[in-house]
């Protein structure tokens, strides 16, 4: 009896004190060992957005109940994925306030307020996709292109440095990548005349350690792919999360479109390293390899998707691959050690290419014309920036995308919609809006793909398109949602709808999962608020 009391007391003590300890890089790298936490944007530096938690299952997910809502003091789209460290949640109130919440109750511990300079005006919303953490310091990239370090316990600023000049149209919206003792970020703004770059800072001091220009300068390989002086203002922003592979010490980032977006005549050539994935040495920033998805892009097919790293059996042998559902409508499997193109195939309607050469260069068959050329997918893509997921259990790659989106590409002009509904692939917003597309026009869809074949194994069709991502759990549940404002739980093996919750606003973020005191939660941002669900 006495033993039971002691055991109960110990249990209570353990439950009431979920100690917050330093988030070392080793913890970030092996975040799969502590599935109660969510330590980086997509869970681990592999970006699989795979939660090891199994309390919520296909059998009981129908019982999920809302536990709490946290309302942001913001009218902006809520694109951030929160982090959870030992019961404390950190997220961003757009544009650039950080809030620390009790992950079990949603009650705030503190708010860090940051007012970006008025020059910080990203093209597509004053948004942010989340903070990173190392030690007990949070890192946030801001829309006026600052990088801030903020104490995770107190919410006090540690340092604030200028990464680039907002007045020169640079902006930052992505969650930083932590590698060892470095904070690595890219700059956005590539719809304007910037020259993009990726830069690493010492996490303690903010000292710049290396910088990689996404457009090579004179004398560097690749500069010859830009006509004349066009390299100086060729865009190629980097505005989404990167990945890290400890086996090769390489980081991977997707790069944005060349500028000007629609008029390629002044920048003839492939325009390296636009619309590419670049693999850099994490210590030096040196380019190890690159693969360009869309050479000489004239349709704003940013390749700023989240790189998803997976170790899979591919064509009969174990391979370390990178899975990529690109804005250009094509899905890719690359060898992430060598950059070798292993497979590519349209995953939505895509007519701008008819195949690849032996090295994986696409054979482009559609070009903008004076009279207008119908090209699929739309400039907003088959998917855009929203994070996909991969389950090592099911072996499937889960992508929220939209189908049937086309555009009429006219030389040097902003492309027109392919159909009568010129708002057919509208940007994400906070609030719900009426939807009018017919079945021949774009619709949202969540699909599970087999990386071996890039064939879809299942799909769940939505009405409106989606700017939300996917998240998969070790109980084979896929969580997603979109512009029509339903948070969805799907069977990861079949795509069957198992549960839905109306969240009263558009979903513009990826879901994540965590647990506190043994209770699993699933969190999703929608509208201007963050919602947390759990079993009763």
């Amino acid at each position, binding site marked *: 009896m006495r033993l039971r009391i002691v055991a109960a007391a110990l249990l209570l*003590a353990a439950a009431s004190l979920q100690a*917050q300890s330093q988030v070392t890089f080793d913890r970030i790298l092996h975040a799969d060992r502590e599935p109660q936490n969510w330590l980086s944007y997509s869970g681990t530096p592999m970006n699989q957005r795979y939660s090891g938690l199994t309390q919520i299952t296909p059998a009981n997910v129908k019982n999920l109940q809302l536990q709490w809502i946290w309302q942001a003091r913001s009218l902006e789209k809520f694109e951030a994925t929160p982090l959870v460290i030992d*019961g404390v949640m950190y997220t961003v109130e757009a544009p650039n306030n950080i809030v620390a919440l009790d992950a079990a*109750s949603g*009650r705030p*511990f503190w708010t860090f307020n940051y007012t970006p300079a008025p020059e910080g005006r990203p093209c597509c919303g004053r948004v942010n996709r989340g903070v990173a953490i190392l030690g007990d310091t949070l890192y946030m990239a801001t829309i006026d292109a600052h990088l801030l370090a903020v*104490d995770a316990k107190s919410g006090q600023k540690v340092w604030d440095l200028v990464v680039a000049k907002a007045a020169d149209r640079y902006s930052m919206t992505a969650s930083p990548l932590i590698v060892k003792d470095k904070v690595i970020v890219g700059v956005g703004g590539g719809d304007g005349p910037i020259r993009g770059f990726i830069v690493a800072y010492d996490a303690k001091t903010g000292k710049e350690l290396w910088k990689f220009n996404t457009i090579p300068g004179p004398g560097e390989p690749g500069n010859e792919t830009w006509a004349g002086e066009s390299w100086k203002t060729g865009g190629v922003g980097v505005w989404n999360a990167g990945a890290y592979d400890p086996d090769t010490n390489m980081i991977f980032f997707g790069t944005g479109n060349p500028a000007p977006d629609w008029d390629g005549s002044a920048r003839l050539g492939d325009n390296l390293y636009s619309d590419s994935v670049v693999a850099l040495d994490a210590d030096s920033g040196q380019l190890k390899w690159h693969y360009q998805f869309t050479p000489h892009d004239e349709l704003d097919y940013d390749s700023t998707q989240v790189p998803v790293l997976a170790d899979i059996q591919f064509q009969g042998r174990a391979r370390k691959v990178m899975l990529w559902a690109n804005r250009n409508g094509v899905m890719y499997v690359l060898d992430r050690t060598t950059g070798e193109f292993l497979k590519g195939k349209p995953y939505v309607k895509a007519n701008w290419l008819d195949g690849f050469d032996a090295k994986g260069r696409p054979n482009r068959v559609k070009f903008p014309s004076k009279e207008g050329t119908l090209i699929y997918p739309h400039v907003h893509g088959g998917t855009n920036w929203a994070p996909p997921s991969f389950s090592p259990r099911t072996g499937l790659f889960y992508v929220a995308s939209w189908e049937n989106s086309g555009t009429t590409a006219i030389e040097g002009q902003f492309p027109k919609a392919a159909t009568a509904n010129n708002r057919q692939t509208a940007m994400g917003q906070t609030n719900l809006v009426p939807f009018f597309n017919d079945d021949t026009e774009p619709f949202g869809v969540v699909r599970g793909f087999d990386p071996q074949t890039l064939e879809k194994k299942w799909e769940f069709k939505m009405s409106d398109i989606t700017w939300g991502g996917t998240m998969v759990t070790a109980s084979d549940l896929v969580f997603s949602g979109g512009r029509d404002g339903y948070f969805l739980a799907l069977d990861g093996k079949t795509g069957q709808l198992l549960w839905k919750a109306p969240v009263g606003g558009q979903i513009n973020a990826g879901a994540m999962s965590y647990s506190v005191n043994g209770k699993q939660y699933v969190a999703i941002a929608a509208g201007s608020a963050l919602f947390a669900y759990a079993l009763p």
Partner: protein
Amino acid sequence: MRKIILTLAIFMAALAGSAVRTPVYAQHETAADLVDGERAFRQTCANCHGPDGDQIQGIDLGRGRFRRPMTDADLVRIIRTGIPNTPMPATQMTEEQASKIVAYLRSRAATVGAASVVGDAARGKTLFDSKGACASCHRVNGSGSRVGPDLSAVGATRGAAELQRALIDPNADVQPQNRFYRVTLKDGTTVEGRLLGHDTFNVQLLDNKEQLRSFSKADLRDATFIPSPMPSYKTTLSAQELADVVSYLSSLRNR
């Protein structure tokens, strides 16, 4: 005996502010009057005179220094009617309101006068880190504990008199966001820390181990505000040492 000397010193210091002091208005002030006076000073006077009243050359309202000797009545009149041909404007204040500001300034001058030892910031930093053990609760520019308020910019937001008062009498004026709190769990375990917020059902603390903690009030046996754990340095630091620490704190204006 020492107390008498100190009191006398304060009295003398207060008198030093004006040649002829006629405390007609200020002699009956209550603590609440002083608080009202301080609030009115900050809202109306501090815009030009600064939070410490020393931002106009030749005038240090917080230390009772004026360009010429002033009675309380003189000051009340100037606050109400202004000084012609100078930037000092007239206000809409009643005599009573102006009197409260005067009372506040006089009381402040008395406090400052009592410790008008010139401090040395470098010595103050050493005391802060060693004898004072201030970093065991406070953080400055990333070093020290987070349990107490972060002092990295305290010199920009608090006057020397306020800092001195906080060192001598830490519980006299605790900012709401710096209040301390204790929760007692049903098993008798207690957790203390700086209160980050509470509502009808929950409490959030930064506990004494620098952990962000949240409790459901339903799980608690007791929840209560507690005094600031900051010790008084009235007797542990000399007047010179106090002045040195105040000088150091006043120099902290980062961020």
